[in-house]
């Protein structure tokens, strides 16, 4: 709650009168000054009461142009807000858009008469399911202004699909990536049909089926599954002690894996990390000299960021969602829900998402000493599971292999 110009003037006047009463021992000035102060306090109490009644009577209805949308396409949101508001108040309602989305237009409108409707567009850049974060009510009257973020009104959710379902062309002999398979015999390569989503290629619309159902349907083509793979090497922390012999064995195993894949002419990408720090990334490298040079540079790296017993937002949501139906569980879910809806991903998670999404590898091999905190290993396993990628863990015999099996890896190999 902030004082406006009028109330600031009143505070100044009350202070002047109070000082006058103090220095000149004048009770009537004390009455005048204190009267103004009490008047402001009474108005502030009324202001808070009005904010509470308005928030309590709030109803928000959002309409989305689409519930499923492609990454980068525009989504139109129409928000209608109704609440009870005293006549002497001014109110502006702002929609709190999901994190990672950019809004076009104005996601806010005045609602001095207690209701308003406004439209704006969103351009989602991050894939996945999104929900709104609520609305912000900005009140003002003659004396005060204040804003109240109401987090409970988050419906409806919408899902952002990747911008391209199919990766680009590749040499099919080596199974590089899934292709659109636009062959002359189209009917034989159609895998399934589904409803049109904005952003789909209009060439894939099946017009006969669309006419029959009076809505747009698109063909999903069959493609070859790729056999590319990703090798992730977790370098030890340069600032912490590590087992040099185990690291040497780990490097040899990683180099052997890369060499084996390269000799079989499979595409291989190499990601170097050090704990939750992305060190370097070599996507689909085909030059053996560069690969060998990179493998020679495998040395401990300085870690700028650290994680400690970190869990991703998705795993925490799942943990609190799968609780039983006791009142405690409901309270716990209610407490954690708003927090998790606003929790941003770490830079490591964002980087992993970009790499895994762009790579479309079928499998990943993670080589790590697993010496310190293992949160980043869990995040990699989760990210692989989200992308239907099997992640295989390779660890030296010095570390606790059985404990790592619980992190969700497809397999754990002890070197």
């Amino acid at each position: 709650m902030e004082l406006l110009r009028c109330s600031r003037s009143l505070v100044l006047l009350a202070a002047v009168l109070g000082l006058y009463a103090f220095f000149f021992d004048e009770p009537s000035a004390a009455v005048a000054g204190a009267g103004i102060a009490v008047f402001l306090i009474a108005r502030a109490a009324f202001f808070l009461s009005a904010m509470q009644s308005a928030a309590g009577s709030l109803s928000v209805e959002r309409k989305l142009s689409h519930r499923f949308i492609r990454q980068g396409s525009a989504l139109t949101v129409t928000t209608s807000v109704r609440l009870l508001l005293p006549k002497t108040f001014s109110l502006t309602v702002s929609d709190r858009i999901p994190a990672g989305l950019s809004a076009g237009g104005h996601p806010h409108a005045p609602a001095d008469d207690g209701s308003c409707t406004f439209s704006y567009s969103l351009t989602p850049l991050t894939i996945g399911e999104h929900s709104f974060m609520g609305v912000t009510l900005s009140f003002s009257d003659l004396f005060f202004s204040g804003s109240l973020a109401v987090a409970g009104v988050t419906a409806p959710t919408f899902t952002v699909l990747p911008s391209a379902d199919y990766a680009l062309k590749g040499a099919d002999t080596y199974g590089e990536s899934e292709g659109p398979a636009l062959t002359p015999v189209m009917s034989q390569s159609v895998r399934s049909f589904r409803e049109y989503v904005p952003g789909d290629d209009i060439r894939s619309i099946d017009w006969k089926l669309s006419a029959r159902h009076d809505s747009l349907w698109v063909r999903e083509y069959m493609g070859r599954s790729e056999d590319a793979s990703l090798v992730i090497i977790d370098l030890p922390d340069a600032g912490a002690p590590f087992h040099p012999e185990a690291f040497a064995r780990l490097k040899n195993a990683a180099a052997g894996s890369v060499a084996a894949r390269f000799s079989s002419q499979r595409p291989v990408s190499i990601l170097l990390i050090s704990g939750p720090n992305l060190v370097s990334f070599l996507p689909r490298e085909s030059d053996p000299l560069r690969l060998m040079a990179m493998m020679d540079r495998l040395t401990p790296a300085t870690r700028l960021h650290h994680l400690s017993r970190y869990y991703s937002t998705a795993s925490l949501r799942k943990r609190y969602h799968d609780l039983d139906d006791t009142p405690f569980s409901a309270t716990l879910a209610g407490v954690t829900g708003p927090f998790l809806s606003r929790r941003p991903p770490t830079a490591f998670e964002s980087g992993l998402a970009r790499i895994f999404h762009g790579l479309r590898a079928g499998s990943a091999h993670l080589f790590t000493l697993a010496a310190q905190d293992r949160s980043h290993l869990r995040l990699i396993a989760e990210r692989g599971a989200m992308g239907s990628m099997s992640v295989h863990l390779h660890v030296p015999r010095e570390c606790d292999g059985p404990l790592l099996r619980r992190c969700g890896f497809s397999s754990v190999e002890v070197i």
Partner: protein
Amino acid sequence: MKPSGRTFVLLCAGEAAVVLAGMASLPAAFLLQFLLPLLLFRESFTPFWTGVISAGGYAAGLAVIGIAVLSSRHTTLPLLFISAFVVLLAVVLLLGEARLKRRYGGVT
């Protein structure tokens, strides 16, 4: 809704009148002090029942001030008491605002 500069000048003049009236009669100063904001900011005391409640709260606060001023020969002690009273009310309001934001904002 914005008050004009004239309103503030009127309020200052009214407060001067309260001080002058208080030199002759303190009850008259109380009455004037009660009526002054009601007349100058009457649009903020609408609708009727909201205005009655606000005016009632204001009158109760003035009564506390009256008791404090009349219970002492000098103004120092009443001023200290009134200052503490106002600070206490302000703290209560701030706590109320924090509670409101926590309740609707979902902050734990």
